[in-house]
C-alpha cells in the first residue's frame, strides 16, 4: 500500500492534470475576487469571497481525478500495479488516497490563496474559529468528491469513458446544487407576505439532506458562508468516503483488466 502510494504521489508531482487544475482554480479565484471587488455596487464582506471559487470545484476535481487516475488505464501502468501489489484492495485504496491528497491540496491552496489575498481588499468579518470549522468541512467535502470520482474512474477502466462520466456527474451535481440551493435560500416571508416558494416541514428536511449529500451543495453553502447543518454535512461526507471506498474495493475485485 505504502509502495503504491509513494509511486502515485511521485506521479502526482509531475501530473499536468494536477497542476492545470490547481492553476485553473487559482485563476478562477482571482477572477472572482476582481469581480466581487469591482463589479458590485455594494461592499461584499470577506466571508462571501473565501469559498466562492468552490462553485467550480466539483467540475475541476472531476476532470483532474478522472484524467489523473484514468492515465493508469490509458497508459497501461495499472497492469504493473496489479501484478506487483499484494491485493487489489491496496491498489484501490492507494488510488483513493492519492486522489484525496490531490483534491485536498487543490482545495487548500485555492481557499488559503483567496483568504490570504482577499483580506486586503474586503471587509474582514471572518471569525477564525468558524473559518477553521468551514475549512475542515471543505476538506472532508473534497475527500468525498475525490473518492467518488476516483472509484468511478477505476470502475470505468478507461480514461475517456471515465472523463465523460465524471464530468457528466459533476455537472449534474452542480445543477442539482443550484436547484436545491435556490429552494433552501428562500425566506418564509417576502415583502411582508408569505413566500409561496418557501418549503417547510419534511420537504425542507429532505431538501436539506439532498443539499448536504451533494458535495456541490456543500460547496454552495460554504461559498454563501452559511452551512445549514455542519455535522450532517460531515456525516454525509463520511458516508460518501466509506461507501465509495467499500464499493470500489468490492467491485474492482471482480473487474477484468485488459
Amino acid at each position, binding site marked *: 500500500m505504502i509502495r*503504491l502510494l509513494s*509511486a502515485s504521489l*511521485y*506521479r502526482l508531482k509531475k501530473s499536468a492534470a494536477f497542476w492545470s487544475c490547481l492553476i485553473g482554480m487559482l485563476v478562477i479565484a482571482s477572477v472572482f475576487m476582481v469581480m466581487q471587488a469591482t463589479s458590485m455596487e455594494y461592499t461584499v464582506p470577506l466571508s462571501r469571497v473565501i469559498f466562492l471559487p468552490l462553485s467550480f470545484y466539483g467540475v475541476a476535481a472531476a476532470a483532474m481525478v478522472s484524467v489523473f487516475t484514468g*492515465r493508469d488505464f490509458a*497508459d497501461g501502468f495499472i497492469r504493473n500495479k*496489479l*501484478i*506487483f501489489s499484494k491485493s487489489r484492495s491496496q491498489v484501490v485504496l492507494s488510488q483513493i488516497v492519492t486522489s484525496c491528497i490531490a483534491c485536498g491540496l487543490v482545495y487548500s491552496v485555492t481557499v488559503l490563496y483567496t483568504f490570504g489575498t482577499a483580506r486586503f481588499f474586503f471587509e474582514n468579518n471572518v471569525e477564525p474559529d468558524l473559518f477553521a470549522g468551514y475549512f475542515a468541512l471543505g476538506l472532508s467535502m473534497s475527500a468525498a468528491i475525490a473518492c467518488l470520482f476516483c472509484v468511478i474512474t477505476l470502475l470505468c477502466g478507461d480514461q475517456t469513458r471515465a472523463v465523460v462520466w465524471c464530468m457528466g456527474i459533476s455537472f449534474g451535481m452542480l445543477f442539482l446544487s443550484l436547484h436545491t440551493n435556490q429552494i433552501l435560500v428562500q425566506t418564509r416571508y417576502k415583502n411582508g407576505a408569505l413566500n409561496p416558494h418557501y418549503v417547510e416541514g419534511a420537504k425542507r428536511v429532505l431538501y436539506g439532506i439532498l443539499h448536504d449529500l451533494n458535495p456541490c451543495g456543500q460547496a454552495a453553502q460554504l461559498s454563501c458562508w452559511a452551512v445549514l447543518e455542519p455535522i450532517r454535512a460531515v456525516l454525509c461526507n463520511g458516508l460518501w468516503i466509506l461507501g465509495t471506498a467499500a464499493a470500489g474495493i468490492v467491485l474492482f475485485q471482480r473487474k477484468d483488466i*485488459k
Partner: protein
Amino acid sequence: MRYVLQTNSLTKKYKNFQALNGLTMNVPEGSVYGFVGKNGAGKTTLIRLICGLQEPSSGDFTLYGIQSGSRDMSRARRRMGAVVETPAVYMDMTAEENLKQQYLILGLPSYDGIPGLLKLVGLEDTGKKKVKNFSMGMKQRLGIAIALAGDPDLLVLDEPVNGLDPQGIVEIRELILKLNRERRITVLISSHILDELSRLATHYGIIDHGRMVKELSAEDLDAACRKCIRMEVSDTGILARVLDSMHLEYRITSETMADLFAKPSVTQLAVSLAEEGCEVLSMTEKDESLESYYLSLIGGGSHD
C-alpha cells in the same frame, strides 16, 4: 524437469465467448517458451490470468509451485516481469521516470539499478525525452526494462515484436536471447509470427480455440519438420530390416508409414523390399516448416 509455470484445465469465459477452454501447459525452467496461436486463440487471455489481471472461470495454475488463488501468489508474481499487449509505460514521463515508478511500486531501496537497465535495453541516451516521442521499438524495450526492474526469473512477453520494424525485431530478439542465456531468465513469449518465434524458442505450445493442441520442444519440432522421404509400405517391419542393412536413418511413424532421413537409391531400395516381400505403396518428399507444421496441427481453418 522443473516447471516455472503449469496450468491445469484453465478456463476463461466472457459472457458468450469461451476464451480459454481447459488449457493445460507446462513452461520448463530456463526455456524460451513460444506460445503460438492465431488471433483470438487465447494467448493474451492466458497471460492476463497469470498476471492476475483477470480471474479464471475454472481450473488453476501454479507459478513457482504456488497455487493460483493462494495468498502467496503475490510473492510468486514478484519473481516475474510482464509486458502484456502494449508496453505499460507513462507517455508523459521519461524512460528514467518510468523506471523510478516501477522501483517505487516494487519497494526497491535505491535507484542504482536504473542506469544499468537503461543500458541493457539500449535506452541510456534518451535523457529527458518523453516516452510519447519514442519509437514503437523503444517503447517495447522500455516495457521490457520495466518488466526486468524486479530482477525476475520469468519474463512474460505478449506479442513483443508486433508493430516493430525489421531492425526493432532484431533488437528485441537479441535482447530476449541475451536475457535467457546470460541471466538464465525463463521467457514465455506469445506470438503468431512463427518465423520469428522459431529463431528464439526452445519449447513451443500451440494453442487453438483456447485449447492446447500440442506442446513440444524445439528438438521435437526440428525432428518433425526435418526434410525426409515419407514412405508408405505394406510392412514396416521388413522396411526397418532393409533400412538397417543399408545403414540408413529412419523413423517408423505408424504401421505402414516411415520417414527416411537419407537419399537412398530408390531403385535399389525398392528391389530390396520386393525381394523381402514388402510392397512400396507410396514415396513422397516431405519438407515441413514451423508454419506448415502449425497449419497441419490446427487444420488451417479460417480466422474467427
